[in-house]
């Protein structure tokens, strides 16, 4: 398509206005990403000059049991995020969209965990799951007096305890989906009703398909949050017991602790690639480049 003379006249302004964003991208995103990729092929202790070692860091990383378990955990957490986490947020959005009594209050309460840091939540959960004074075991002991488990420190409970620290905090999903629901033109609902569609049919054939973009976006956000999840694990299980709740950011930190920045960055690259893969798959599956009303 040929640019109009007005557009051509404004080229220099377009370029100049894009420049700040481009510079920010260059210094704060591209440069660190490139340095992570480069140093992942090097032996580097963060201080002395790096030395090129080819694929050695990746071979070492793939051979570690903690990495294999991290990938397994990531897969399981991604599955849970896609189904239960996004599903819960979406269902809540559909309920709130019906504006039942107290919907505004519910929305505000649901928002609260988002203003508390993940680190603080992790510590709160340490108390919730504490065997002696925790709410969870206290509740269970009402029915089973002999129930004693330290959720964060016993297999296989630790994985589920970590999962519960984020599973139901889906307010971003709810807000995104609600935003899409509010964007559906009133005429569409009126037409459906004229055609005799019932509530379930409207939900299934109109509302849900029209929230495709927000649900897809929510899945991307949820899975990438699982890829980068650190505080919830570091402050509760530290990846234990054994390697039960290990993940890539923890491997990265552990290698930094051992002054193995090259190996740490190799796990950083794996996180980056996992994120890109998720982005591509969800993009394709949910046709995110196609508008709803095109």
């Amino acid at each position, binding site marked *: 398509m040929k640019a109009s003379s007005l557009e051509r006249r404004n080229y220099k302004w377009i370029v100049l206005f894009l*420049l700040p964003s481009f*510079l*920010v991208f260059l*210094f704060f995103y591209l440069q660190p990403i490139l340095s992570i990729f480069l140093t992942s092929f090097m032996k580097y202790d963060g*201080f002395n000059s790096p030395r090129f070692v080819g694929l050695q860091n990746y071979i070492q990383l793939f051979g570690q049991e903690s990495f294999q378990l991290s990938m397994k955990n990531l897969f399981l957490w991604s599955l849970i995020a896609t189904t239960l986490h996004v599903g819960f947020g979406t269902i809540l959005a559909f309920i709130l969209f019906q504006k039942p009594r107290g919907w505004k209050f519910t929305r505000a309460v649901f928002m609260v965990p988002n203003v508390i840091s993940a680190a603080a939540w992790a510590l709160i959960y340490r108390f919730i799951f504490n065997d002696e004074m925790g709410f969870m075991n206290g509740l269970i002991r009402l029915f089973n007096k002999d129930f004693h488990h330290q959720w964060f420190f*016993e297999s296989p409970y630790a994985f589920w305890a970590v999962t519960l620290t984020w599973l139901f905090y889906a307010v971003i999903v709810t807000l995104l989906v609600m935003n899409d629901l509010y964007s559906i033109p009133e005429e569409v609902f009126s037409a459906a009703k004229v055609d005799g569609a019932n509530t379930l049919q409207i939900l299934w054939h109109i509302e849900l398909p029209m929230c495709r973009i927000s649900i897809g976006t929510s899945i991307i956000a949820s899975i990438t949050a699982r890829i980068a999840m650190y505080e919830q694990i570091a402050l509760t*299980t*530290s990846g*234990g017991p*054994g390697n039960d709740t290990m993940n890539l950011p923890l491997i990265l930190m552990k290698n930094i602790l051992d002054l193995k920045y090259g190996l740490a960055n190799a796990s950083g690259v794996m996180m980056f690639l996992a994120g890109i893969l998720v982005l591509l798959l969800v993009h394709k599956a949910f046709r995110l480049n196609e508008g709803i009303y095109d």
Partner: protein
Amino acid sequence: MKKRKLLSLALALVLGLSLPGCANNTPKAESEKGSAAAGETEAEKEGAEKKETSEGLKEMKLPTFLAGENVGAKFFLPQVERFNKKYEGKYKITVEEVVQDSYAEKIKQLATQKKLPALVHSPGSGGIDAQWFKQVILDNDLAYDLTDFAKETPELSELWLPESKEYCTYNGKLVVSPMLVIRPIGMFYNEDLYKPEKALGELSYEEFVSSLGDKKIAFMTSENAWTSALMLSALVGNEEGGAKLLQDSVKDKLWDYTEEPFVKGVEKLQTLLQKNASANTLGAAYADAANAFMSNKAAVIPNGSWMVSEFNEESKDKWSNDFKGSSVHAGIYPGNIALANPAGYGDFWIPATASDDEKEVAKAFLAFRGSQEELEAYLLAEGGTAPRLKYSEDFLNKLKENPLLYEYNQSVNDDTKYVPILGDVFPASIGDQEFGKLLPKLIDGSLSPEEFCKELTKKAEEAKQ
């Protein structure tokens, strides 16, 4: 119209460029990498700026983890104040309080930027690992040589422990201020819950276990599993060849945990963890272990003499469940084992990148800390012995006023076997994370002692450079 566009553009540029501008230290630090001299220039500049602010006063900033809730803060912070008061108008140290968990990370970052403070806590404390110290600081000649300082202050250098002085010497340079005090680590027990028939150190392991019965020990599995690691150090040290294994591993770390004394020590630890661990052991951090002991839920806690202050009346607010500080007694480990390592680093080192003024303040502070008055005050506050110091009468009298500290000091004798703690021989990630993370599997029996040791060895192998 054009004016508006230009204004908008200027605003956008200011916004965009101000962000990278915030990071202008990084490229500078990068360009200075590898050149200690360049770092000195920067530090000197800062020193010069400080000079301008107050004529004649030489200042330095001291980030330290001996602050806040850290038990060491009780003595250290007033000590800095005493120093500032003594040298008022000449030297001044401003303390920057840093959370213990963040201290090592902060120091590592400052080292990369060649902006280390003039006094840095030694490896083995504050999460600073010896591996980093050797690889980054010593191999790059970034530690200031204290040899001349030693000659200038003979009254101080004579008090340094010879084994420590040797350990602190690298390539002929004295890179860390050597140890003045040795603080053997033992255990505390609550007489209301547990009364051994003789001193703990005089018991054999079997006698200890049988006298303990089903009484509880305040173990930990979180953080660095400090109390559990102390017990394991003693158990390994009590095995044939175990003390030598640990002593020989201080310099180059222990990487293979499948050696017989270690496996046997782990076997005994597993028994204790399964039978005698306090109810909150799984997931217990240090605060939880201390809480178990100070609430009568554990009869024994392995820990050093610095914990004595927790049993004084003024710490009463931390007690619960009818716990009485006066019922606490101290002793070393069964088999006459005390945990101490005289061949280790002292408290502080001075970076070569510090300015001359800062070095002067730092050296004055080291000399101040090593003065008889301060050393005795330290021993009275935190326990331990200064083997090369001739104690004053006043000190000996005061020591007797604190029976627990006195008891702790008296628990060692000429036959006591000194063993380094595992923290001195574990590589950083093993000591800080992996050991504690694997303990729950040793407790629930999903790992046998042999498997535990193999798993730990595998982790150490991964941590190797």
